[in-house]
């Protein structure tokens, strides 16, 4: 096959992925279920099946028989447990805005920066070789397919950087990851394009693999039966699929691999990312429990037939079994099929690379780079610059760095190892996370110190028994280590640690690393004290269901916190707009005036911390908050710890005194609150009486008129029509009134959600004017509105703003005389405020009515209009403007028209 065709086809395929990712993100706004459904989710989980599955399973099956199945049986056994475990992890991750497995572990163990960094570094060690494995798969399948006689084919021999297909693969995949994996800063926003592309790839690789399987079974051989019959005549091949004493499978190895893969299906950073972080709905797990094992079953169905077929066809030719999938079609001259296989392999490899690199770059930025950046003064104190963009750039640069590292590993060490062993070495490494994660979920007593020690021990044992040993095997390190042990100590032999012999290297490493890791975790936990924060996180993780049911949590901050310290932090890391939203949500839900907030409650500090954690990780968020908030004293549980440790009763009594004083203040505050409540109650009663009165008026007309029509069948038709017309009109008035009362109630109680967004007031007013133009024309009035040329931005709820403008405008139209009425509109920026004026030349408002104009049910003008208002319109306007942190007021002299002013905070263009 010509090199240029293959290159173009590969780029075309990746282009197709781009397209799928792009369009599913676009279409998602119209049809959210496109990506947000359990089938897409289950397919995306199949990112588990990499090039290792695609090429390597056959390779391993060709010499070790059904041993390869173990790493698919593990996840299948694990799947039913997801119902409890994975769902729990998802809940915790949502609650704490966690964005990677490193963040998860760090967050559980007291938001430890060190632990987050450690997990990240370990993950980089485990996963980068694994990524390079995928590059190797792409590159070798490419080399196998291309025609070496052409000049382009000959130049792509991998001897130089620019002649190496793996290098190009690495760079294109990095670009894809950046475009679709690193989109949003906060993890509450999902990368649905990425998930769609990964699911698509899962379909492609399954299809391609089946194509080869069917071809081998029915194309090369007559039927599967014939294939296996032929194999039975070769003793060593037949042993591959036998379970009796002559079987090649070692039962112990099987069990070890099953346990390993059970751990990795949760702990692999890419699995954690796709199954937890990108999960859109915890309920999707329920279907994935059977869909995912089914996928694993389907993709493994033809492994053994292909392996056996390959052994038979290439008997004694020294063809690498890892390439059977590709070389069998080539042997039979099936170039098209080989091409399909190549694309399948590319999809398996690229999906793994994209998701892994996404997860690793988020981990590196949040757990390695951020804690360091946050500690440097420039980031913390140069508060003018918006950092949110820069953070995304950092992640993008990290993506390239990680891909480059994988590539460098590929050209240095990676070429030597077979597909499976590199993968298994990664698996053993990743499984080291399992004990601390299990503990995080189900055991409150695990401490930070224990988790750190356990991970360090596991990491060290892994490093010694696998990569270190492999380097010695490869001759990079002295081979003598295998005979004499490290430093000549016979108990430190990499393949026979502490004298344990007779195991294969993987089982041996798994046994020692997981055993010592878990023991360290359990033992150190018994001998170390958790801090209060650790305890709180432990409770939250283990009992997440209870936390979600009752969101009241013991707060960790008791110091003074000021909005002026927190707001710049938010703006810096999440951007101006998001920051504004968070602050405004707080002010609205607490009924506070934004301008008057100085000190903020602990609950807000926690809200800010969680929001920051979503962007920079729990540990960094913790550091940022600590730098901004002056913490004074500890909370109750931490005080109890202090007592346990030092028995300083003096301090305890001092705390008691403080508590006493605190109680007194609380009591006073309660009394005041009670007084306010009573006053509010009175207001409420008055309001209810007025509402009742207002409701009774239309009901009276309706009842009376209806009764007249009902009891006078011989009423003249014209009278009848008049009276029924009144019934209809009054009914309309009644329902309008009810709607407005409910609307106002909702806003006053703080239940109405303002959907705040950047809003162009020019557009809002123009839209409102358009809607009312017919009314103006009907009364033959003039409406004067000259729209400014440039947009004027505010933060606001569009529908609510239109409601305000229409209300003021229709009042103006209503109270201006027909024929001679002039309604004048104006919009301008004054200082930091947007000012908006509606002026009419109606009869105006009397001086005594002016102060009550925005009160409920003030019908100032006792008009004789056909449509009498409800008396609530201006109250609603006032409330909406208030909820937007703005002001509304009126200027008027009786007989000379009225001017209504609205003032709202201006949003600068610089976002």
């Amino acid at each position, binding site marked *: 096959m010509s090199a240029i065709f293959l290159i173009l086809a590969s780029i075309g395929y990746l282009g197709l992925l781009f397209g799928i990712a792009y369009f599913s993100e676009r279409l998602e706004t119209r049809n959210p279920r496109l990506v947000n459904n359990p089938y897409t989710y289950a397919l995306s989980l199949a990112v588990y099946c990499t090039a290792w599955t695609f090429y390597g399973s056959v390779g391993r099956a060709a010499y070790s028989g059904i041993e390869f199945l173990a790493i698919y049986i593990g996840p299948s056994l694990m799947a039913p447990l997801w119902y409890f475990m994975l769902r729990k992890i998802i809940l915790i991750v949502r609650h704490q805005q966690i964005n990677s497995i490193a963040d998860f572990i760090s967050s559980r163990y007291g938001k430890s920066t060190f632990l987050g960094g450690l997990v990240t570094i370990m993950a980089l060690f485990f996963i980068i070789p694994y990524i390079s494995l995928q590059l190797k798969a792409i590159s070798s399948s490419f080399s196998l397919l291309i025609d070496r006689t052409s000049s382009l084919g000959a130049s792509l021999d991998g001897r130089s950087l620019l002649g190496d297909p793996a290098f190009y693969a690495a760079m294109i995949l990095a670009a894809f990851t950046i475009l679709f994996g690193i989109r949003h800063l906060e993890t509450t926003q999902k990368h649905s394009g990425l998930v769609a592309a990964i699911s698509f790839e899962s379909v492609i690789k399954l299809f391609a693999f089946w194509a080869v399987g069917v071809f081998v079974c029915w194309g090369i051989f007559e039927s599967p039966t014939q294939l296996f019959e032929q194999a039975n005549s070769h003793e060593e091949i037949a042993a591959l699929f036998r379970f009796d004493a002559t079987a090649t499978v070692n039962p112990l190895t099987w069990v070890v691999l099953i346990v390993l893969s059970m751990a990795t299906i949760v702990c692999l950073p890419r699995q954690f990312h796709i199954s937890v972080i990108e999960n859109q709905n915890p309920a999707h797990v329920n279907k994935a429990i059977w869909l995912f094992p089914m996928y694993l079953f389907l993709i493994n169905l033809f492994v053994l037939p292909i392996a056996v077929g390959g052994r038979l066809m290439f008997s004694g030719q020294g063809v690498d079994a890892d390439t059977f999938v590709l070389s069998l079609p080539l042997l039979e001259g099936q170039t098209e099929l080989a091409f399909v296989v190549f694309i399948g392999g590319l999809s398996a490899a690229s999906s793994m690379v994209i998701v892994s690199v996404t997860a690793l770059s988020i981990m590196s930025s949040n757990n390695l780079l951020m804690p360091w950046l946050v500690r440097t003064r420039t980031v913390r104190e140069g508060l003018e610059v918006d950092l949110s963009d820069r953070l995304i750039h950092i992640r993008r640069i990290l993506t390239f760095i990680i891909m480059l590292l994988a590539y460098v590993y590929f050209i240095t060490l990676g070429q030597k190892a077979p597909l499976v062993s590199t993968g298994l070495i990664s698996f053993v490494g990743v499984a080291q996370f399992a004990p601390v994660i299990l503990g995080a979920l189900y055991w409150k007593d695990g401490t930070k110190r224990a988790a750190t020690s356990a991970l360090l021990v596991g990491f060290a044992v892994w490093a010694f028994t696998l990569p270190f040993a492999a380097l010695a095997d490869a001759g990079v390190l002295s081979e003598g280590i295998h005979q004499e042990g490290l430093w000549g100590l016979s108990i430190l032999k990499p393949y026979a640690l502490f004298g344990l012999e007779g195991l294969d290297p993987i089982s041996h490493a798994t046994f020692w690393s997981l055993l010592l890791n878990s023991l360290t975790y359990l033992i150190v936990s018994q001998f170390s004290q958790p801090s209060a924060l650790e305890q709180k996180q432990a409770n939250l993780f283990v009992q997440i269901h209870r936390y979600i049911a009752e969101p009241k949590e013991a707060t960790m901050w008791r110091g003074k916190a000021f909005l002026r310290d927190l707001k710049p932090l938010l703006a810096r890391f999440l951007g101006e707009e998001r920051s504004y939203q968070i602050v405004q949500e707080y002010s609205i839900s607490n009924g506070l005036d934004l301008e008057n907030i100085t000190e903020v409650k602990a609950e807000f500090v926690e809200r800010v911390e969680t929001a920051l954690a979503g962007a920079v990780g729990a540990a960094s968020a913790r550091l940022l908050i600590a730098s901004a908030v002056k913490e004074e004293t500890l909370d109750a549980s931490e005080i109890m710890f202090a007592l346990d440790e030092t028995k300083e009763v003096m301090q305890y009594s001092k705390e008691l005194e403080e508590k006493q004083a605190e109680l007194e203040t609380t009591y006073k505050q309660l009394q005041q609150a009670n007084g306010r409540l009573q006053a509010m109650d009175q207001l409420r009663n008055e309001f209810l*009486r007025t509402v*009742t*009165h207002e409701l*009774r*008026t239309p*009901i*009276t*007309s*309706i*009842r*009376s*008129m209806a*009764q*007249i029509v009902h*009891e*006078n069948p011989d009423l003249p038709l014209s*009278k009848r029509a008049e*009276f029924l017309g*009144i019934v209809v*009109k*009054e009914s309309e008035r009644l329902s309008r009134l009810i709607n407005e009362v409910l609307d106002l109630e909702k806003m006053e109680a703080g239940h109405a959600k303002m959907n705040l967004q950047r809003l162009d007031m020019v557009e809002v007013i123009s839209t409102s004017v358009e809607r009312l133009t017919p009314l103006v024309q009907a009364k033959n009035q003039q409406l004067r509105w000259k729209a400014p040329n440039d947009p004027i931005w505010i933060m606001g709820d569009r529908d609510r703003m239109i409601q305000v403008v229409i209300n003021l405008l229709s009042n103006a139209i209503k109270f201006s005389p027909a024929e001679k009425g002039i309604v004048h509109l104006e919009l301008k920026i004054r200082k930091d405020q947007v000012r908006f004026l509606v002026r009419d030349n109606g009869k105006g408002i009397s001086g005594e009515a002016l102060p009550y104009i925005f009160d409920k049910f003030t*019908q100032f003008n*006792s008009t*004789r209009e056909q449509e009498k208002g409800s008396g609530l319109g201006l109250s609603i306007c006032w409330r909406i403007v208030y909820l937007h942190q703005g002001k509304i007021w009126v200027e008027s002299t009786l007989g000379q028209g009225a001017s209504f002013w609205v003032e709202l905070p201006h949003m600068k263009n610089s976002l």
Partner: protein
Amino acid sequence: MLNQITKTRVLIVDDEPNIATAIDFLMQQQGYETTVARDGEEALQAIADFQPNLVILDVMMPRKDGLETATAIRQSSAYQDVPIIFLTARDSEQDKLKGYEAGGELYLTKPFDNHDLVAMVNELRVYG
């Protein structure tokens, strides 16, 4: 007196035009002569011009409310005996008391049954 040989005249005072229209119809159906006023001021004017035998008076009205209007009627020497029916959407005991204090004969809450209103008017016309 003069009004015994002419038609009974009823003054209807309500700021809600639709309610006034309904009462107006009901009174005319009974064969009474009617006039409608839309607030207290207009009502006092109409009393002088129209010399009603009976007043149906809404309580909550702009400018001069029903209670003030009733007090004014009771204080004038010429019309102090005209029977007054209060019509109101307020129905607490306190509100009723206020009505009787201001000099109302009867008190009817909105929304009302047409028959009740007619019965009240007829009763006052006979005995008032």
